[in-house]
């Protein structure tokens, strides 16, 4: 008896295996249906930029998370699953607008972001700091203590540093424009090198 007419159980069902095309088609169908029925709580995708791949995630309210590769995209998605909703799927059209604006920003064709933001991952003083940051214009910088004063707590300089370090929306909410009083760059969620790249792109004295 040859093996073709008497296959192993394992081989018997090999023809049922889906191809990559099948998987992509079915995944797209699932994402479309989830979007249509309003059960896609968090959509995400990755965009390649001058500062490496950026993870973008959005709820139905707006962009909720931007993350650098060094922040570990998998860990960030797990956090979104725990803190926002486990109904997390890759793809969909929700992030088209945000991805386009970020590409334009890195191409030097965009100075401000015009995107709905979901700031639910920040609260209290940190939220206050994040709400102030977009007032620092493209290509300009403020010191941590200037930001502390603007956020209403002139002595909370260290807390401003924490608010920037935990900014859930780096690049879009420009914590990279906050530098040390002595003019040195200070720390950054995406690493000092990424901060330098962004400020150089914006033509800020860095």
């Amino acid at each position, binding site marked *: 008896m040859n093996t*073709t*007419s*008497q*296959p192993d*159980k394992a081989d*018997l*069902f090999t*023809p*049922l*295996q*889906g*191809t990559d*095309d*099948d*998987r992509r*088609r*079915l*995944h797209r*169908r*699932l994402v479309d*249906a*989830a979007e249509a*029925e309003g*059960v*896609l709580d*968090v959509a*995400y995708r990755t965009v390649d930029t001058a500062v490496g791949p950026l993870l973008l995630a959005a709820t139905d309210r707006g962009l909720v998370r931007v*993350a650098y590769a*060094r*922040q*570990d995209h998998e*860990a*960030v*998605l*797990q*956090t*979104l*699953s*725990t*803190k926002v*909703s*486990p*109904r*997390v*799927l*890759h793809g969909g059209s929700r992030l088209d607008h945000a991805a386009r604006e970020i590409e334009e920003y890195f191409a030097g064709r965009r100075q401000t972001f015009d995107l709905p933001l979901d700031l639910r*991952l*920040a609260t209290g003083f940190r939220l206050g700091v994040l709400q102030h940051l977009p007032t620092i214009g493209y290509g300009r910088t403020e010191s941590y203590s200037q930001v502390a004063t603007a956020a209403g707590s002139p002595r909370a300089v260290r807390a401003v540093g924490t608010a920037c*370090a*935990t900014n*859930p929306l780096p690049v879009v909410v420009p914590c990279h424009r906050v530098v040390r009083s002595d003019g040195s760059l200070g720390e950054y*969620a995406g690493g000092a090198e990424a901060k330098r790249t962004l400020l150089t792109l914006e033509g800020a004295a860095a």
Partner: protein
Amino acid sequence: MRTLDAGTSRTGRRERLQDVKKPFEQIVDEHGPTVLRVCRAVLGPADAEDAWAETFLSALKAYPDLDPAANVEAWLVTIAHRRAIDVKRAETRRAVPVARVPDARPSRDLTDDDDVQDLWRALEALPAKQRQTVAYHHIAGFSHREVAEIVGGSEAAARRSSADGIANLRRTLTNAHEEREPRP
């Protein structure tokens, strides 16, 4: 850098481990291929994609409430099993006695090959219970006891049904193959 991520804040650490649920994307990634093979085995290529999509959509809806300790694949296959029964019922209601040839929607490699055609016909010729128990045991890899929980009936009945199903499949496939290529 985990320490820079909002998710590993103090409140994040206080959450009990069993409450941590993977992003659903990971569930699709890990179990999607197996559920597709199961749907194909139970329903054939034409209806399998509808069943797969409906299974994962209803799983997505229910996912936040799923017991974190649940066996996710058994949960998915149970949903797929119910979808499959719904599809069969709808077919019976339509009751149009048309020869059920796989339609053109799935990819070519599913329907072009003679061996694949033989497998579809052999699966289609199986009694529904054998088709299900074969799929859940041999493709999804569930124990006969787990299979019995999904299809109903005893563990022994599930074991018998699955063994009969495999024997029937083998016989049909061997016959089909020899019809095409008679042995010298």
